[in-house]
């Protein structure tokens, strides 16, 4: 018990003194997850709004596949990206295995289905409300998509935050494609796994606390955006 308390004391000390190693790991984690989130949002929001406002043969099957991809096991994604990026893989020529770029690709693949499926649902609900108004105005598909994304923006920010939460807390894929290389591809989750196995509890705890704080912050932001939605857009 005393050992644990000591570990907590050291962990808080590392956070308060802004330990350079911890800072480096946290910043890389944020960088990787934010870039992956940006890619996921660009793909997810645009495809989500197109899917939400289109009817085509086989749409149901496409939706089932996308919804299933929300539960993609990160280690399987990691393995697939590893195989594609390894020397003998299809994209081996890019030479990006064990770099932050590979981690961004893996995280994007994990986050995109979440952002896509949730934004599709949000935008489709809104489109169902607006569709007769749009038809009546005879406006273009592009104008419809722009309107839907803008009017659903508060809810879409919540969707993006959910995706970010999933990305930053993920460990299986980034450890396979990033390799957990010190000062290069080491992020919070991979670091926690490594330091715990090495018995360096204060370091792992410090990162764990920061990860938890980020998670609390994301939840607070989600709540704030929900309140904003009600205040400014009323549902």
């Amino acid at each position, binding site marked *: 018990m005393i050992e644990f308390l000591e570990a907590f004391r050291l962990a808080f000390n590392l956070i308060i003194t802004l330990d350079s190693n911890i800072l480096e790991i946290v910043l890389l984690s944020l960088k990787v997850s934010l870039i992956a989130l940006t890619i996921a949002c660009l793909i997810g929001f645009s495809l989500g709004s197109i899917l939400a406002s289109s009817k085509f043969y086989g749409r149901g099957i496409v939706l089932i596949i996308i919804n299933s991809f929300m539960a993609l096991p990160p280690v399987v994604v990691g393995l697939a990206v590893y195989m594609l990026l390894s020397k003998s893989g299809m994209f081996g020529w890019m030479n990006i295995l064990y770099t932050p770029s590979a981690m961004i690709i893996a995280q994007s693949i994990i986050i995109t289905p979440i952002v896509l499926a949730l934004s599709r649902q949000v935008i489709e609900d809104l489109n169902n409300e*607006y569709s*007769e108004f749009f*038809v009546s105005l005879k406006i273009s598909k592009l104008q419809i998509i722009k*309107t839907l994304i803008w*009017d659903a923006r508060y809810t879409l920010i919540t969707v993006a935050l959910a995706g970010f939460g999933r990305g930053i807390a993920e460990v299986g894929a980034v450890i396979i494609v990033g390799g957990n290389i010190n000062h290069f591809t080491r992020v919070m989750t991979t670091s926690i796994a490594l330091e715990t196995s090495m018995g360096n509890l204060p370091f792992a705890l410090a990162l764990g606390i920061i990860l938890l704080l980020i998670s609390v912050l994301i939840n607070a932001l989600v709540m704030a955006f929900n309140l904003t939605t009600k205040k400014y*857009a*009323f549902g």
Partner: protein
Amino acid sequence: MHLDKFNRTLIRIKPEKNINCLPIYIKDLCLNLDERKILSSLNLSINSDDVTVIMGPNGAGKSIFLKILNGILTPTSGCITWNNKKQFSDTLNTQAFVFQKPILLRRSVIANLDYMGSVLGYKKKISKDRLLEIVQLQKQKNQPARMLSLGEQQRLSLVRSLMVRPNLLLLDEPTANLDPGSTKIIEDIVLNLKKMGIKIIFVTHNILQAKRIADDIIFLNKGKMVEHLGKKEFFSNSKSIEVQNYLNGIL
């Protein structure tokens, strides 16, 4: 608001292109939804440039008919000719539709009007504050549109539709469930638009309202036209038993 100011504001939303959509001929119009016949061989013509009121019991097909006119729904068969032309894209672009349940964007009151200007690409500036003044919503201009009362939402929906600067305005029971104040504002606007030469087709259940605003009345029942008469004749001389039953509250 003074009537002159009211009209001066409305005159700015007068159609830019004067596209004559009349007469409107509806021939053998049918609509089936899930094998249910909603409209069956509807035949009628609308010639007058005044206020045409469509009446009929629930399920008569009034709203569906209005939505087909606006292109929101596609009929199963039959055709509509506008000023003897089947090509009616011009006419469709100068129509505006006011829904029974207002469809407002998740934006402020003024942003709902701004939206119309942006998607329709207006060159001529229309004072949105003036429009809001007409429907007595100037104080709520920065409020979320969906937080307005139903009456206020419908008034906003009406002025927003005027930003299309329509030649033909279709109103689907716009005053259903509204208080007398909101109903009067909407009726006043409709009557003023009629004076400006905008053709109005107005669906209502309200017999007194039809007496106040209609010039001619189309009576639908079970997806068919039963009667199309001038207002006076409709209320005093209709030979149709269905119309008489409806007016007596039996149908």
